[in-house]
């Protein structure tokens, strides 16, 4: 029997189902999503600024921000009431599965460049809730997960320090001493690099430093992460701002997070069930 005639005999629906196509609803404008509508500002000039972030329009975002600054609008207000609101809406749409990674990254690029314009007028960095340090495990060149974390943390109002890829333990310790973060995130994609995490914890302990270390990424296992102290297993990049908030506001430590992860991030997380 030929390949073609075999193919014609198949009833696809009994072999596999493309659930992704099946679950799609009708197309709508992102700003019309009821949850997004609650987040976005309604007043000028903040609404159009937030919409440029929502629509990943970097050039228009910078233009509108510059114009508002020229009109005497406070740079802090532009950041908090315009740019951050737009980014909050982007993060929400991403977690709802309506927006995708490219939307998030391009919105993040537009927000960061617009924030720089505001900071130039302010004359200093804008205020943030607290500092978080991020790194990729020693020996690992994969940093998209870490870049996602940076984007979510910055969108959540945190100063996120990026130590880059393939970061040795002593470099992490130096950065913790320098920036005094409330939280440290480490990521690894390769099956061979997650062993860098306990070395980081050991080096931190040796230096007398105590900071919760969230470890996650492609090949990282929860049971492994929980085999050494000061750490917890991180499941999704978008959980990071909620985890950081819990550490900052509710004074949760790594032991609490291991126990309460699902409650803190506000959703069912099978790894923690």
């Amino acid at each position: 029997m030929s390949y073609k005639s075999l193919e014609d005999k198949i009833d696809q629906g009994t072999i596999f189902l493309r659930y992704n196509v099946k679950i799609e609803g009708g197309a709508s404008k992102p700003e019309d999503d009821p949850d997004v509508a609650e987040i976005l500002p309604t007043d000028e000039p903040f609404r159009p600024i937030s919409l440029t972030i929502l629509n990943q329009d970097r050039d228009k975002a910078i233009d509108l921000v510059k114009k508002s600054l020229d009109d005497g609008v406070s740079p802090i207000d532009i950041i908090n009431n315009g740019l951050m609101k737009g980014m909050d809406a982007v993060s929400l749409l991403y977690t709802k599965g309506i927006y995708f990674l490219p939307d998030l990254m391009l919105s993040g690029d537009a927000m960061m460049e617009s924030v720089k314009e505001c900071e130039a007028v302010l004359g200093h960095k804008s205020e943030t809730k607290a500092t978080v340090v991020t790194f990729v495990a020693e020996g690992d060149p994969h940093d998209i997960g870490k870049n996602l974390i940076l984007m979510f943390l910055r969108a959540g109002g945190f100063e996120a320090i990026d130590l880059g890829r393939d970061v040795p333990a002593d470099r992490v310790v130096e950065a913790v001493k320098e920036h005094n973060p409330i939280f440290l995130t480490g990521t690894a994609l390769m099956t061979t690099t997650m062993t860098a995490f306990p070395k980081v914890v050991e080096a931190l302990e040796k230096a007398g430093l105590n900071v919760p270390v969230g470890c996650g990424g492609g090949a990282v296992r929860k049971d492994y992460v929980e085999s050494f102290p000061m750490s917890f297993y991180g499941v999704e990049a978008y959980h990071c701002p909620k985890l950081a908030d819990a550490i900052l506001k509710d004074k949760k430590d790594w032991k609490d997070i291991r126990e309460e992860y699902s409650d803190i991030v506000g959703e069912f997380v099978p790894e923690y069930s």
Partner: protein
Amino acid sequence: MKRFTRMEYENPEEMLFGHAKYPVKLGKDFELGAGYVIPELNVAPGEGSEVSKEKMVSEYKGIAYSASVRAVNVGLPSFILEHEHIAQQTYNPDWGGACTAAEVEVLENFNDEYGIKTGLRATPADIRDEEKGTGLWGSDLYIKIMETVEACAENDANIISIETTGGKSVSDYGISRGDIKAILFGIGVLGSMDMEHMWTEIVSICNKHNTIPGGDTDCSQSNTAMFLAGGLLGSDCSHTLAAITRAMGAARSLVAVECGAKGPLKDCGYENPIVKAVSGVPIATEGKNATCAHSDLMGNLIAAVTDMWSNESVYHREEMGGTTPQVWLQTLGYEAALMNTAIQTGQGKVLRDLYTLTDKYRDPQALILAYDNAYRIGQAIVKNGDDPYLRAKAAALEAGAIINEAVDAKKMNLTRFERDTLDNALKILESLPTDSDKFTKDCIKRYSRKVEDFDPKNYEL
């Protein structure tokens, strides 16, 4: 270097698992792609074993022994052990050499005692990193890699492979932002250039030691797209974009063969059916028996034209059924036995087609790798074979055309995200220059500004 400008296979129907146009001889009565499929096992060392050379050697000796015992106990005629280096083994070439020697000794002992045919593939790590500004070619890290290749070859590894990472900073930027131009530049231009540099030297070292230069994989780029794309509910990379990224990866991975690699190409190169269609070398692939390492949407289809069936990687630890080398080699061995039985009973092509059809329309990434479509992408590559940029672009366009035809035939439905990103990517690809220098110049200007880690000097541009 001779580029491929014609297909080594006359038509896709000729392609079948266990059969390559140009089999590779590993030893007496042991060939790859010579009429039978061989399981290939890869195991990552357990945590803590990386602390010293002695612990590493002992770990790998244990893996080789454990796998060999199970292979004999379930009656496997042959298997290949792959040793993918962790960074420490390539930073310290003597570690890589010592581990290789220990593994080879175990495998040879089993061969002597039971006659089981065994071989070792050593895969040093690509420890170079654009971010650190240490340079890609001729840097200290580059030298370490080549010293490790030499150490493995000297210690009797049968096959040498590597997963090179040239162009990754730019392609990662493109994959995470849906920027097809960046992906094409990162894979088709920078990746291909880096491959040529690396593989010219690797082949020369292998030839000196009579070791087989196996081949590469576009793991660091196309698999990044595939992993981000994830399952059907994944939202980090469109599956159509991941599919055309894979097609470009084939144009890039072919460079190793053009530099003298003989196959088997590395298991995680899902683009391998395309490279096999063009070049005729044996390939390793992985799918349903690699779920220990990751999930894909083509677990059966990717077996259709394989020559070595792999598990990708698994941590060295205990399962209920034995150690992971034992458990996963056994699953691979049974699947290879099914394929070999099909070949011997004249049912090989039926099984090939069944493997293909179970997954062909499951996802756009699977669709373009069905052997008939892989062949079409190969044809697009060789038509532009002399120019790495143009052939990667042609591969992407052909992959897009294949997906669109399946949509028109109502065999595949796309999500809006898949539809929009595909339309957008094809529109951009069609508008790109036909002159590779012009494209390269444009991209240098654009991505030097946008991608912090990209330094054209690393590629002598």
